[in-house]
């Protein structure tokens, strides 16, 4: 590990100013991903600015509904928060499906959004990786890609976004509140992560020095009945092969409204807009759910190793939406 200076930030503006002024500085919060990356040599900051003790650790109700989640709220605390459990169960379920109890006690909301792919080639500094070392190539293209993305990939990168939390949040139309040297701005989470294209090293729309201070979730009545299902290689403590976050509003057998997002299959938390459009106004039947999933997956470009994710995604979408539709009509 390369030596680095360490500072504990006492206010957000100061933290932003410090990192903005130093191109070799990085923020650190829980550190559950970054400290591992320091050990692996994936990142080599000369200066860490610790934002974990900034007063951004509250979940509050917004005026007019919805929640504001401070950036340093721990994943465990967010999952257990009474309002999240009640208003957005999909978010609690997604958080609880991720990592382990020990990690959820430390990992923060902002850090979770910025966690990096678990692509084995990205994490191996001896392998070619356009994300870690732009222009070096992509070892995954000729490698083992069971855990890689099938949606949003490019000829330069197949890495899947690893977050569960973000999949639920993108389904819920979350907004990311960002503080920069010139003040605050808001970015829809759906547009916060970039597709890899020919610059997989650019993962989000954040500029150097910009700090996530909160995530806001608008009110959504149907989210009270929402669900998250994660399919993985072992029963717990593993990244998703496929995951589905959904909220559904059915009346008289017709889909009035739906939110659908996918994890484990996209290069970013994947809002399934094509499927949503196919569903609204149509029948709430398994056949319609499968057809909508098929429409979303028409754009998929799988490898031999991960082509199984297409039928697995379709089945999981059908299972989750059918479950919600059944609940709805009870």
């Amino acid at each position, binding site marked *: 590990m390369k*030596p*680095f200076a360490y500072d504990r930030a006492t206010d957000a503006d100061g933290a932003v100013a410090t990192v903005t002024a130093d191109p070799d500085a990085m923020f*650190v919060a829980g550190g559950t991903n970054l400290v591992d990356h320091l050990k692996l040599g994936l990142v080599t900051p000369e200066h860490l600015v610790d934002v974990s003790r900034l007063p951004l650790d509250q979940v509050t109700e917004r005026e007019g509904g919805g929640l504001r989640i401070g950036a340093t709220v721990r994943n465990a605390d967010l999952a*257990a928060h009474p309002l999240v459990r009640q208003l957005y169960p999909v978010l609690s379920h997604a958080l609880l*499906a991720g990592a382990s*109890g*020990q990690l959820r006690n*430390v990992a923060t909301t902002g850090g979770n959004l910025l966690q990096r792919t678990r692509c084995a080639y990205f994490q191996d500094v001896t392998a070619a990786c356009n994300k870690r070392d732009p222009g070096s190539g992509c070892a995954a293209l000729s490698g083992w890609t069971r855990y890689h993305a099938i949606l949003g990939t490019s000829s330069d990168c197949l890495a899947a976004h690893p977050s569960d939390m973000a999949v639920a949040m993108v389904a819920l139309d979350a907004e990311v509140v960002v503080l920069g040297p010139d003040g605050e701005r808001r970015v829809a989470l759906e547009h916060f992560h970039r597709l890899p294209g020919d610059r997989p090293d650019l993962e989000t729309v954040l500029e150097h020095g910009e700090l996530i201070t909160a995530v806001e979730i608008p009110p959504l009545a149907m989210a009270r009945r929402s669900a998250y299902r994660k399919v993985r290689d072992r*029963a*717990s403590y593993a990244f998703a092969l496929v995951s589905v976050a959904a909220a559904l509003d059915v009346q008289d057998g017709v889909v009035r409204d739906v939110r659908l997002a996918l994890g484990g299959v996209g290069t970013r938390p994947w809002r399934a807009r094509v499927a949503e459009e196919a569903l609204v106004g149509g029948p709430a039947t398994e056949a319609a759910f499968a057809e909508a999933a098929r429409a979303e997956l028409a754009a998929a470009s799988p490898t031999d190793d991960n082509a199984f994710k297409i039928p697995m995604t379709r089945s999981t979408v059908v299972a989750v939406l059918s479950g919600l539709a059944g609940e709805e009509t009870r």
Partner: protein
Amino acid sequence: MEADLTWRVDGVEHTLAVDTRTTVLDALRDRLGNTSPKKGCDHGQCGACTVLVDGRRQLSCLGLAVAHDGSEITTAAGLVDGDELHPVQQAFVDHDGLQCGYCTPGQVCSAVGMLDEVKAGHPSAVSDDLEADVELDEDEIRERMSGNLCRCGAYSNIVAAIEEAARA
């Protein structure tokens, strides 16, 4: 680069200067000689390094020591009360919840933290109803302890030990 750190470890205050790169785990083991938390994978995948930080279970291998200035750290060695084992430790002994023992201090700290989470009403990934009281059955224990691996495969006795400790 060095930085000063003051923290309490198993009830004793320590002040030391650490290289900023030092993890909590390495500071405990190499600087304070507290070898209770174990270095298994050193990448947050096995749970052998689990300690309690301000009462909550965490992985000491993924925390920077300098970020824990002012923290109260409890390792499995610090759970004893005089000569008396902590109820979770005693349950592991009574149920033979180990073979080689390497993962055990992490398992014990994780179980202590986990039982507090249950008392606080935290749901888990296998809790069907997020708002219902937690019934700590085998599925719940296995899910909540999934961050602690045991290469000997002593899981069935670990579950039994935790079930008993939960009843205590």
